[in-house]
């Protein structure tokens, strides 16, 4: 397992902070979006897009690239911001998000946006699609890795577990699910709406090697991503314990902020918090 320098950790934390600022700016400007689940994945996205993924913005269709599927497509703002910072398109284009004729749809669209591997928005698809990508790689003799970022509420979808069975049957070790376990979904706390526990046991019994981490700890994210690449006989899942709305005190752990844009005052306060002007 590679050693990750403190410098890298600091850099990626700074990327995550920048993604949060971008996400809030995008959602505020548009007056629409999903701040809660976009903020909770900032570190995971930063670690993947600015360090871990084998991708090349100049060759978005490079056959050997790693595949990342944002199965929880409602967090599109974070993905778009990361893609822009990686150079798939300009940062200015982020301002077009959700406008007519924009390449940036409300939810990701693979045909419109460079770097978006798969169209998502309705939940449950990422894992079974990832299984197909993985089986295809095996036939083609390619060694790319596939990451599907799932919401925790998404783990209530039956089709996701269909994909999990497929992944286990074919021992798809190049397939890694990452669960953004923030315990808040649109209508309220996940443990009240439809409990998932024991989520770890569920994944294990479906044949996945399961790793639990603090999803806001860059070092843990990097080490778990390295670790799952060392697994060769079963699919893997990283259960990332996170906080919905992370980084903005009044949004944290509140289902209200699943799909609500902040007003001017709320936005100013959120930015000030993220910039460290207020605690």
């Amino acid at each position, binding site marked *: 397992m590679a050693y990750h320098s403190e410098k890298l950790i600091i850099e990626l934390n700074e990327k995550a902070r920048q993604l949060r600022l971008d996400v809030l700016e995008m959602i505020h400007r548009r007056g629409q979006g999903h701040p809660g689940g976009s903020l909770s994945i900032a570190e995971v996205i930063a670690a993947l897009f600015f360090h871990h993924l084998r991708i090349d913005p100049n060759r978005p269709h490079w056959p050997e690239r790693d595949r990342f599927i944002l199965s929880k497509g409602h967090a599109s703002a974070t993905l778009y911001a990361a893609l822009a910072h990686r150079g798939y398109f300009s940062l200015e284009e982020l301002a077009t998000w959700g406008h007519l004729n924009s390449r940036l749809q409300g939810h990701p669209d693979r*045909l419109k946006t460079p770097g978006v591997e798969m169209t998502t928005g309705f939940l449950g*698809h990422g894992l079974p699609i990832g299984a*197909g990508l993985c089986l*295809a790689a095996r*036939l083609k003799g390619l060694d790319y890795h596939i990451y599907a970022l799932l919401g925790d509420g998404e783990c209530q979808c*039956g089709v996701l577990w*269909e994909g999990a069975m497929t992944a286990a*049957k074919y021992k798809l070790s190049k397939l890694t699910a990452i669960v953004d376990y923030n315990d808040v979904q649109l209508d309220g706390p996940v443990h009240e709406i439809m409990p998932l526990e024991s989520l770890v046991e569920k994944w294990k019994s479906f044949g996945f090697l399961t790793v639990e981490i603090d999803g806001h700890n860059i070092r843990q994210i990097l080490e778990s991503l390295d670790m799952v690449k060392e697994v060769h006989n079963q699919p893997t899942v990283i259960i990332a314990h996170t906080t919905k709305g992370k980084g903005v005190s009044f949004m944290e752990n509140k289902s209200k902020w699943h799909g609500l844009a902040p007003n001017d005052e709320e936005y100013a306060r959120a930015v000030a918090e993220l910039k460290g002007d207020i605690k």
Partner: protein
Amino acid sequence: MMEKASFRKAFAEAMVECGAKNSNVVVLVADVSSSVMTEYFAEKFPQRFFNLGIQEAGMIDTAVGFALAGMIPFANTFAGLFLRTVEQIRTCVAYARTNVKLMGGYSGVSAFKDGPTHHAIMDVAVMRAMPNLTVLAPADATEVKKILPLVVEYDGPVYVRISRAETPVVFDDTHKVEIGKGVLLQDGSDVTLIGSGVMVARCLEAAKILANEGIDAQVINIHTIKPLDASMLQEAAEKTGAIVTAEEHSIIGGLGSAVGEVLGERCPVPFERVGILDIFTETALDYESLLDHCGLGVKDVVKAARRAIKRKKGRKNGINRWRSNQGVSH
């Protein structure tokens, strides 16, 4: 009586040929490989065959993954079971325009013995409403064999109805197929019978009966329900002035609806639909009597043709009466 051939066997053999020609072809199935006969493919190309068990929705998504990697996945289950996967098809196949081929086995009432749960009589209506999706209903064993290589080459998602039945052989091996192009089987001047799937053979039978009555019917095979060959339909309406559609499907949303939409806009003429009249079907001991029972008999096509012709004459008389009232000469 026309000679018969197994539709699903022809499909299964064609699937093997396609697999031999193109190494990107993979076959997925949801625990019905002996029913839809993809077992042939499995035997020949085990490494490109994936039986995913009874998970139709997951199978569609997995097929999408194959397509994203540049392969050509054929997802197989019963046509009726594709209704379980409509959201997968809408979001991940049609909207995302992934190159997934959907093989709807046991189409129509061809699973006569299994009853209405296993009959697919609204699948075309659902698939036809999906942007980007091409919808095919081959007429016989020859046509499905001819059309499958075109489906492999076609860049985009396709839904194909595959009958379970032994169906009348309409075409010989010289038959040429082009996706999106109707096939004129028999020329005529009084009425056009437009069929898809097994009803094409029944339209030909009906045309013979009509000929005995002195009615000159032309017969068209529409294997591509979407995109529809609108110009051929318009020409037929202009030429014969009366149209009958016949399909092994509900009269709502299928071939009849599609043809009606074109005629209404381009050339409104008397038009009759033969199809299942917005009811669920029944179990039967054999396929042919079930078709007859469902209102899909040769006699139903004949009656519909007579009605259309009668309306055409009535309309001509009506127009003539109107013209004479207006003092218009003709």
